[in-house]
């Protein structure tokens, strides 16, 4: 997946010289995960900039760069350090268009790895997507495959709305599906049916999609047919795509790495019961981390929902009745 991101950045920078990449360690090093490897050598120090260590000014100056006519792609080294820039993202990035009544567009992409499972040091691995989906004006995408990583990034960069583009730390090197060489986009706001099924709809995004798919495989051996939806984009949300699946299965499980309370799963539950109430055959379940801080690496496997847990909870859901 990391190669797909790098390739997309290179192609977009080639095609449009207004695109600049700024962030911590993105230049000479090529990013701590190498997402920008080689870009500074290709496009120069003006277009791929090693910024001082300050997320607030990285994002805030990104707004200014966009106002000046450039199309900045910002790398936040880890979403865990998005807090340092949150005043710029939440109050500024997300609202500039509205506050200027359409005068200013903000063609800005903030890329950031997030999520757990790779034993990072403390404070690096939280799945904070819900902070940002609760930030009107900001689009939020979270690809699970390399194909989508490339296509969604291209779409995000094309968009005149600011987009937070979340990259799964766990999937960076693990995810290795086919990626076409040529440039293409994957539309924002369209989910992907990762696996078709009839009994239960299992909704996930980012790294959790892989867990969902593996659980679905095991469940199929138990005779339970699971449809796995990869949301790809949390805002805009593909409500029609979700409803279509729920109309078919009548049973829904939502899987996410973030804590339960206030997680994006709650938003989905509310939306689904509103849109699909008469299709539901059982209460919707959420499979998530507990309501505790992301722990140190030695216990993170107990924190993040794993395949066994998903299998057990979805199997119970398949038998439950309203």
């Amino acid at each position, binding site marked *: 997946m990391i190669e797909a991101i790098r390739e997309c950045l290179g192609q977009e920078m080639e095609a449009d010289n207004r695109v600049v990449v700024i962030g911590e*360690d993105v230049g000479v090093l090529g990013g701590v995960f190498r997402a920008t490897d080689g870009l500074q050598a290709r496009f120069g120090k003006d277009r791929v900039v090693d910024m001082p260590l300050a997320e607030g*000014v990285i994002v805030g100056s990104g707004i200014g760069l966009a106002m000046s006519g450039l199309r900045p792609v910002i790398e936040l080294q880890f979403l865990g350090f998005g807090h340092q820039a949150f005043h710029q993202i939440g109050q500024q990035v997300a609202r500039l268009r509205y506050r200027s009544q359409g005068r200013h567009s903000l063609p800005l992409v903030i890329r950031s790895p997030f999520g757990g499972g790779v034993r990072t040091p403390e404070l690096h691995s939280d799945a904070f997507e819900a902070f940002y989906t609760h930030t009107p004006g900001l689009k939020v995408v979270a690809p699970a495959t390399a194909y989508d990583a490339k296509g969604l990034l291209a779409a995000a960069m094309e968009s005149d709305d600011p987009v937070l583009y979340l990259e799964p730390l766990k999937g960076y090197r693990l995810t290795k599906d086919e990626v076409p060489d040529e440039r293409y986009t994957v539309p924002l706001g369209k989910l992907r049916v990762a696996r078709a099924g009839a009994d239960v709809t299992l909704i996930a995004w980012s790294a959790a999609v892989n867990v969902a798919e593996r659980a679905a495989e095991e469940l199929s051996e138990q005779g339970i047919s699971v449809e796995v939806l990869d949301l790809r984009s949390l805002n805009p949300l593909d409500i029609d795509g979700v409803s279509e699946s729920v109309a078919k299965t009548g049973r829904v499980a939502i899987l996410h790495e973030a804590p339960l309370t206030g997680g994006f799963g709650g938003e989905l539950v509310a939306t689904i019961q509103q849109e699909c109430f008469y299709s539901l055959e059982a209460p919707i379940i959420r499979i998530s981390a*507990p309501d*505790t*801080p992301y*722990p*140190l690496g*030695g*216990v993170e496997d107990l924190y993040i929902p794993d395949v066994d*847990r998903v299998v057990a909870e979805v199997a119970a859901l398949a038998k439950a009745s309203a």
Partner: protein
Amino acid sequence: MSESRFLPNFEPIAPFSRLTDSGILDSGESPMSDDAVIEALRYMMLTRVFDDKATSMQRQGRFGTFSSVRGQEASVVGAATALDPTKDWIVPQYREFPALIRHGYPIENFALYFMGNPKGGTIPSNVNMLPMQISLAAQIPQATGLAWGLKMQGGDGVVITFFGDGASSEGDFHESLNLAGIMKAPVIFFLQNNGWAISTPRENQTAARSFAERAIGYGVEGVMVDGNDLLAVHEVTTQAVAKARAGGGPTLIESVTYRTGAHNTADDPTRYIDQQELEKWQQKDPVERVKNYLRSRGIWNENLEQELLDSCAAQIDAAMESARNTPLATSDALFNHVYAEPPQRMLDQKRDWAIRNGDAQ
């Protein structure tokens, strides 16, 4: 420009030092007794032994990602030995192993933390420190408030906070120095300028010629010290501590040193580091400099060195062994210590997690 309204351009400052690169003291009096230097050397060597051991364990998958102190031992130990652990506080970043150990944080806990066991975070109740900080610069406002609070309550404890050249670019640095200046908080801002923030060179952090001179804008005293010179760091920090204790307010100390190792065990510095510059700094090795100083005093020899090394190795081995023998954390480690009075919902989750994982409740 001489009559302009712009502020005058003043002479750049040079780092304060006491020892030459080869460990010879200048003509003044030593700021540390021989015993104190030997004790400090022990902390420096203990750090080397720990760093080597932890790095090799990390390669074998028995230790997590961690940042060694290599090259900065004099900087950290010189500062730490200026403190009184019974009343002074340390508010660390993450690259200050010997300071924490001297202050009383157990090596075993330090190791457990990097092995990913939440128990490692335990700070004994008589140890005056805040947890290591991973979110860069977040510790600096906290140190400022802690110092301000100690002063408000009439104590004479002082606070030292460690942070890097990189962390100094965060807004938290600015906001803290500003507040500390206003409140005359007894806090020492100990900035370790080790040349790098991962791959980002010091030049990308500030156009100021030194970090120390940035203090002026806050009405705070700044000083630049040779961070590879144990005696100089100790002396400058001791002065800053005495000033803070006496009500003289904060100091920004820029300790000029160099990270001669990788940023952490996940980093490959060959991708960005200037080999010649690295070699130049390796010549200034802070541990060798202290040994040379002791030799020049006629109180150091191979036997003493071997003895010290053996005792350090024994201490680290014992701590690592004990960390390794600590049982793996179970699911309650996710839930314990999150709240003083946990919400029922979380307690229900704790029970569910224990049942699912077969853990004792």
